[in-house]
Structure formats: structure tokens, C-alpha cells
């Protein structure tokens, strides 16, 4: 780590207009927005941006979305969960298209972030769209040299309602081809008939199977809906993990 503050945390937080280069559907309920942001100062895996929509009459609606792309990529990618009666997310997923502008500020946040220099092992636990900042961490990790990656093995445990609700499923399965990355899904509602994986909410037994033993002193990142995050964080501490190495981010259903 350098002694200087990264630009990502030291600059003033101003609104900028980013240019949309693509909007792609990830699952039935989520989409990813690919952006070109002029003068983007760079970000750290786990950070988010604030997005602002302004109506003709001046009414403003603002939401936070996690950054899905790793710091190494030229484009900034946000993944948005579409809430049916939301004010912002239906516009982002259904109306926004390439060449549109989108007002945003960021990157924001410094607590729920991970750089490969911080080391591991890495234990990532996601519920629903909480996988977004954790995917940025895995993608950031994948950019490191093989020798560095070998010293930072990673396990992801990801809880989704159905097989089709798993965001970045193909990408995660690609990342899991690295020998030092394990990706495990648990499906809490309808699973395919040939599904052999977990079929329940994340519990202590699952965290003991997928997680690292406390003696490995993993860095844990837990992100998802508040009940899942609080349950998982409590279980990890009960298992014996150091609370100071368990970082959490709660995602709310703000649309």
C-alpha cells in the first residue's frame, strides 16, 4: 500500500454525468449498466456510487448502487435490482439505453472494501443482489498474478431464491475454475430437479463447510438483505471468527 490517500477517497464528491454504453439484463430482476465516466478517479472493490434522477419539475430521486466491475476495467459497471414499484430502478433497467447520460457521484465508501494487498483467505457471503460488491472483489482478485492469487484463496457462498435468480452465474462458474476459488450456491425456493447443491437458508453448518476455520483467520465480507447479513455475521462470530475481520453491508429494497 502506498502512503498516499487514494484519489478514490480524498477528492470532493461531485455529481458527474456518465455516458451509458450498454444496458444488459442479468436475470429477470436485475440489469447491469455499463458506463463511461469522464475523469473517473478509480475505485476499490466493494465501493458504490449514488445515482440521481431529476424530473422536469425538479423532483429528485437518489439511490446507491454497488460497483460490479473491478478497478482494473476501463468501464464502470453497476448492477441494479429492479423493484417493480420503485422510482429509480425500473427506469434504469427498462428505459435507460446506450448513449443516454446518467448522473452519478462516487466512488463512495471505505469500510466494505477489499484490495488484494490486504490478503486473505477471503470468505464472501452473499444474499441476492448482495453478490454485486463481492463479485467486484473476486474480479479484482482475478487480475492479480497467479503467485499472489495463490496466497489469497477465496470462497463465495451465495444464497438466491431460484437458479435463475443467480446473478453473474456463468461468470462466477468461470471464476470458480481457478483452483483456489470455490463458489457454492444455495437455493431457497425453487431449485432445478437435478440440483445437488444446498436448498436452504444459510446456516451454521453451511458456513462451517464452506467457510474457513477460525484458525485460518479469513477476511469475511457479508452483503445482502439485513436479516441475512445479521444472521450470518452472528453465526460467523459464534463459530469463532474474529468480529473485527467480519465486515458487513446491508442492502435495502429501495427501488
Amino acid at each position, binding site marked *: *500500500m502506498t*502512503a498516499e*490517500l*487514494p484519489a478514490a*477517497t*480524498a477528492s*470532493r*464528491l461531485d455529481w458527474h454525468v456518465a455516458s451509458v454504453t450498454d444496458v444488459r439484463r442479468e436475470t429477470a430482476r436485475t440489469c447491469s449498466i455499463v458506463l463511461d465516466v469522464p475523469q473517473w478517479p478509480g475505485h*476499490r472493490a466493494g465501493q*458504490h456510487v*449514488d445515482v440521481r434522477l431529476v424530473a422536469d419539475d425538479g423532483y429528485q430521486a*437518489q439511490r*446507491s448502487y454497488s460497483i460490479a466491475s473491478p478497478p482494473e476495467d476501463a468501464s464502470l459497471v453497476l448492477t441494479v435490482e429492479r423493484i417493480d414499484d420503485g422510482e429509480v430502478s425500473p427506469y434504469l433497467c427498462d428505459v435507460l439505453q446506450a448513449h443516454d447520460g446518467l448522473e452519478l*457521484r*462516487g466512488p*463512495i*465508501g*471505505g*469500510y*466494505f*472494501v477489499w484490495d488484494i494487498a490486504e490478503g486473505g483467505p477471503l470468505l464472501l457471503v452473499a444474499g441476492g443482489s448482495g453478490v454485486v460488491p463481492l463479485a467486484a472483489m473476486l474480479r479484482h482478485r482475478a487480475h492479480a498474478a497467479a503467485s499472489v492469487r495463490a496466497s489469497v484463496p477465496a470462497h463465495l457462498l451465495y444464497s438466491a431464491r431460484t437458479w435463475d435468480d443467480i446473478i453473474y452465474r456463468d461468470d462466477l462458474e468461470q471464476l470458480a475454475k481457478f483452483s483456489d476459488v470455490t463458489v457454492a450456491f444455495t437455493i431457497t425456493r425453487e431449485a432445478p430437479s437435478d440440483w445437488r447443491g444446498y436448498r436452504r437458508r444459510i446456516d451454521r453448518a453451511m458456513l462451517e463447510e464452506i467457510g474457513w476455520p477460525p484458525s485460518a483467520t479469513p477476511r469475511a465480507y457479508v452483503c445482502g*438483505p*439485513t*436479516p441475512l447479513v*445479521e444472521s450470518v455475521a452472528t453465526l460467523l462470530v459464534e463459530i469463532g471468527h474474529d468480529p473485527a475481520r467480519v*465486515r*458487513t*453491508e*446491508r*442492502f*435495502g*429494497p429501495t427501488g
Partner: protein
Amino acid sequence: MRVEEMRLDGNAAAGALREIFAHDMTTALVTCAGCARASPMGVLMNYGGPMGVILRCPHCDTVMLRIVSTPGGRYMDASGSSVMLIPERPT
């Protein structure tokens, strides 16, 4: 929707805090004026909404920080926080 799903954490207040502070505040270590325990700002319980931010101590529920935006400016009440340690570098 369950009430607990509406409760987020200090990470979600990072943008509102950056409107006031020069640095990211989610890693700042904040000591509760109620129970004297210190927590990173990112783990405080956030009951905020469109009006602003209400951050409570995760140990004792004391309201540690309130920010309310009004047309005339922002009110910030930090009387529930006795000390804030803002790290020199992000951790």
C-alpha cells in the same frame, strides 16, 4: 416488508457523510456517548430515509448521529458521539 429490512447501516450513509466531511467516514471509529463503545461508522445502524440519516449504536441503540437536509442547509447532531477517530489512511 419487515421493519428490520428497512434498517441499513452506515455504509448507506457514506454519500450523505461525504457531503459534509472531506474524507470517507465509514472507517471512522466513533465512540458512543451512551455506552462508550467504539464502532466503525460503517457498522452503525441506519434508520435514515429521504429526509436524512439517523445512525444508532449497534450495542445500545443510542442515536449517535443525525443529519437532516432542509432547504436552508443541513443540520448535523452528533451529541450521541463522544469521539470520532478519522483514520489517516483508509484501512
